[in-house]
């Protein structure tokens, strides 16, 4: 009995395929081309938007890790009381670097101040508030993309530079990036006055001006100079850590550091995305809506085509039933047609995305943030599979519903109205 059922099912499916194939190959070519084109474009649109959103997300994270916080940031303890510095930073970093998978560490002194500059030497100073970061230039290079790689003018800091400063182009003024408040055109060699929040005032020579799109107008001094200003030694406001993702997960590394230093505050890069993260969540939500609309457009298009086709062949369907072709075969024939259109649309759409759009963006990058972040379409296997599955399910339903609506009609009504 089971063999009979299987055999019947196979012959039913074969008959459905036969009817569907004949309908596709002998049907209206223009309708077929138009339908497949609409489906291909819907699929392309859905995947493109999804890929761009993923790309934005991915690029932002990559940029944040490259320029801001690397893979992990260690801050001073907050319990039982908030401390300002991590003490004995050299020892702390040396221990962290023994963790398998940790590539490098670097320390920062973070403070703030107001930079003033008198361009015309007429006593009229222009001031800019800025975050001031004290770095060890050599260590810094191992962990982040440093100002040395972003220089527009001048040179990067050396370890012993205590009277030199690196400022961002927006703060300097007179470069492409314009902000409301800048120094009016400070350049390499100019002397600027930096008043720290702790009241210390120093004069520095501008050693270099860097492109500060990703660094939010931070000013850089050496760690040595920062220690002098802050009256500390061998400390750090934060330690940034670069890790190898192939060795362990982000949370795995965090746990290992916490095991060594339970008092220190240890955070992954996610904590530093800040407002960007909220923005990306909103964009993700928008992406979900737009993707849903694409799928709906595709489903409605298939539905309309199949429905009109079935309605126009209502009589033929009645005749097929009258000669003994069961309803299931007829419905499956329409579902197979719907699948065919869907798969053609997905194939062409996939070629457009992976064969045209993605390679084009690689060959001719479109800058989102000049010289730093390019527009990219990024996909995970799961996203691609989900996109295809959504379309296939939509195609199935869009084929099944109208076919079922028409095929279940009474034979006499179908044939003679």
């Amino acid at each position, binding site marked *: 009995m089971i063999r009979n059922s299987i*055999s*019947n099912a*196979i*012959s*039913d499916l*074969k*008959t459905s395929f*036969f*009817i569907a194939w*004949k*309908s596709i*190959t*002998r*049907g209206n070519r223009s309708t077929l081309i138009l339908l497949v084109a609409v489906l291909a474009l819907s699929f392309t649109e859905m995947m493109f938007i999804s890929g761009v959103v993923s790309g934005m997300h991915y690029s932002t994270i990559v940029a944040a890790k490259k320029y801001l916080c690397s893979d992990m940031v260690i801050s001073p303890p907050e319990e039982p009381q908030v401390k300002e510095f991590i003490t004995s930073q050299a020892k702390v970093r040396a221990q962290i670097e023994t963790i398998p998978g940790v590539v490098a560490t670097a320390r920062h002194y973070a403070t703030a101040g107001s930079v003033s500059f008198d361009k015309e030497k007429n006593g009229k100073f222009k001031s800019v508030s800025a975050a001031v970061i004290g770095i060890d230039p050599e260590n810094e290079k191992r962990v982040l993309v440093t100002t040395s790689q972003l220089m527009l003018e001048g040179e990067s800091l050396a370890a012993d530079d205590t009277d030199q400063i690196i400022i961002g182009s927006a703060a300097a003024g007179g470069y492409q990036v314009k902000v409301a408040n800048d120094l009016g055109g400070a350049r390499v060699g100019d002397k600027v006055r930096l008043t720290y929040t702790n009241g210390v005032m120093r004069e520095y020579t501008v050693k270099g001006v860097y492109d500060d799109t990703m660094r939010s107008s931070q000013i850089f001094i050496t760690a040595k100079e920062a220690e002098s200003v802050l009256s500390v030694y061998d400390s750090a406001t934060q330690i940034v850590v670069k890790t190898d993702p192939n060795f362990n997960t982000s949370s795995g590394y965090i746990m290992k550091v916490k095991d060594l230093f339970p008092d220190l505050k240890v955070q992954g890069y996610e904590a530093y995305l800040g407002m960007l993260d909220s923005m990306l969540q909103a964009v993700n939500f928008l992406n979900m809506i737009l993707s849903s609309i694409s799928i709906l457009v595709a489903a409605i298009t298939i539905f309309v085509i199949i429905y009109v086709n079935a309605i126009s062949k209502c*009589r*033929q369907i009645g*005749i*097929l*039933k*009258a*000669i*003994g*072709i*069961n*309803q299931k*075969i007829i419905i499956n024939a329409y579902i197979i047609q719907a699948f065919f259109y869907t798969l053609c649309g997905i194939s062409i759409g996939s070629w457009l995305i992976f064969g045209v759009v993605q390679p084009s963006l690689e060959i001719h990058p479109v800058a989102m943030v000049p010289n730093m972040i390019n527009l990219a379409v990024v996909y995970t296997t799961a996203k691609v599979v989900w996109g295809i599955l959504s379309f296939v399910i939509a195609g199935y339903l869009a084929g099944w519903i109208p076919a079922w609506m028409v095929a279940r009609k009474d*034979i*006499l009504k179908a*044939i003679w109205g």
Partner: protein
Amino acid sequence: MIKVVNLARTYFGKVPTLALKGVSFDVAEGEFVAIMGRSGSGKSTLLHQLGLIDTPTGGSFLIDDTDGIKLSDIEKTKFRLNYLGYVFQDYALITELNTIENVYLPAMALGIGSKIYKKRAAELLDLVGLGDRMEHYPVELSGGEQQRVAIARALINNPKILFADEPTANLDTASSEVVLSLFKKLNVELKQTVVMVTHEPDDIAYVDRVIWMRDGLVDRIEGGGPLKND
């Protein structure tokens, strides 16, 4: 082969229509029977009940011991595929299929092997005189040719009974004669039981018996068989 007892069909609506009011007759195996009558007499309605395309509202009928009333929709479809052949007034061929494909489609649905059904389809098309038109599509055939293809399709699964609903209504005299001669040939040579609805008096010459319908009842049966009215 067919035993009809007090068969009735009422179409319920604003005004119920009593299309069949209680019809009884028999059809023996190998008979060629015509059901005739004026328009609205119930002849096509009767054919639809016997062909399991519609469901009676009263009475009963047996096709070779199978109670036609008790079959479910799925069982009816299976029964039609296995045991009945149906020829429509307007040929009712599938336009996307060529001649031979139209003929073997029901055999494919029955699960017969492709070599077997293709061979049988070719033989039937030879039998109906269309052996040289197998690759043609319905639009390329005349009305008479299309009807002959429909007859071949109706025969593909060796049906017990061939039902024909006004098969010559859309054909000219010459084509009609060809089709009717074919039915007669099938009946005589292959002992095919044929039940045909027609309103053409000339068709009587081809059949063994005529069941005359009037106002949903059997008026008279010519050529033998008891007349039963309720």
